[in-house]
């Protein structure tokens, strides 16, 4: 039978995680569904629920440090400059009951390709901080996500914080699902934009549910950087942008949607998100 350790400090938690056959339990909203399906039943669990130090959000020199145990009910109220997409993504997670329990760190480590918070954090260029008995390391989120259910988390490591750099631009998150609540995304997208004198100076686009992990759309970003708003109405530019975006993503047919539907939605979302952000940028 599984053991269930309840450490009170991160220090104590990593000592438990150093033991054989242990895994962390954050809010349990994913772990307990997996257990119902017979997964991880032989593991011992290290509960992170009592680690107050991982439930804090603090501003430091390199950005905002969001504790991995910050739940989505709290994350949807965050007001980090330039990071509206994170709060918007948090508000789209499950339903109130899930948002009261599900955590940002848990969402990342579960590594669902459809995780709502991951594209938002990728568009914000977030990094994750990992601690184990042998030390601490910081990994860009884009490198941390390895595949469906797979991350770069090493045995014995605990994700303690997510570092979100403060941006001077604006960001937005969109999600398409079969219904508004409790829906797994068919396609989700976060865009971060900075403009100067009517030109895009910085853009980061990240998508969920259209590849084995959430992905950055580097080709589309390269095309968009330096362009003006009117370029977005030019048919030729739009065709090139769509082609670039479709190269960035690799959606598949599954029970929720077809590959073609996801491609169409991904591009329309990009055009929509750019127009929303462009308005915000010009008002500022």
């Amino acid at each position, binding site marked *: 039978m599984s053991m269930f350790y309840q450490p009170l400090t991160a220090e104590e938690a990593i000592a438990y995680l150093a033991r054989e056959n242990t895994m962390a339990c954050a809010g349990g909203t994913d772990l*307990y569904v997996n257990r119902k399906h017979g997964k991880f039943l032989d593991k011992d669990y290290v509960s992170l629920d009592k680690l107050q130090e991982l439930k804090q959000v603090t501003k430091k020199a390199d950005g905002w440090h969001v504790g991995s145990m910050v739940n989505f009910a709290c994350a949807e109220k965050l007001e980090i400059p330039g990071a509206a997409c994170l709060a918007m993504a948090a508000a789209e997670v499950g339903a109130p009951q899930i948002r009261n329990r599900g955590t940002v760190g848990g969402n990342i480590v579960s590594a669902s390709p459809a995780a709502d918070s991951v594209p938002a954090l990728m568009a914000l260029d977030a990094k994750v901080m990992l601690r184990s008995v042998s030390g601490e390391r910081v990994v860009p989120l884009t490198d941390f996500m390895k595949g469906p259910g797979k991350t770069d988390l090493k045995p014995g490591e605990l994700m303690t914080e997510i570092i979100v750099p403060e941006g001077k631009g604006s960001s937005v998150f969109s999600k398409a699902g079969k219904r508004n609540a409790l829906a797994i995304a068919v396609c989700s997208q976060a865009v971060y934009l900075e403009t100067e004198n009517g030109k895009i100076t910085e853009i980061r686009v990240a998508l969920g549910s259209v590849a084995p992990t959430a992905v950055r759309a580097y080709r589309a970003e390269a095309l968009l950087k330096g362009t003006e708003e009117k370029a977005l109405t030019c048919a030729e530019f739009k065709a090139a942008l769509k082609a670039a975006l479709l190269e960035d993503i690799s959606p598949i047919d599954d029970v929720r949607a077809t590959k073609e539907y996801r491609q169409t939605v991904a591009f329309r979302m990009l055009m929509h998100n750019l127009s929303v952000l462009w308005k915000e940028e010009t008002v500022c």
Partner: protein
Amino acid sequence: MLNIQLTVNGELHTILIDPAETLLHVLREKLGLTGTKEGCGEGDCGACTILVNGKSVNSCIYPAIQADGCEILTVEGVEKNPKLARIQQAFVDHGAVQCGFCSPGMIMATCALLDENPTPTDEEIRRGLSGNLCRCTGYQAMVDAVKSLI
């Protein structure tokens, strides 16, 4: 096996649990509080909604051990809790109960919604109850019941 302490509907209990047992299982099987229902068992339907320290949660995917020392409110609390009793009466008055299986979860979700936002808009009511499914699809009567409490 290990002991946890829960204050359920105002009463303190010391309960012997399996380490990975769910809170739903403890409530139904150890305390005999069968008002809280198991629907999907995966946190999708909200039939098992209860309040832990005032926050609505799906008890079917809640590790009981993490609730050690917490205050729990279940639909049985309606006996002693005037606010819950009002919600129950509003559901009755508006015919917001069909087969009744989702009702305990709906009532608990309404309780959490009104605690956080005593004057929700229609949109906010629907968002507040979005984690609770009704297979009889009697949603409008429930929204009307919640509106009557504002």
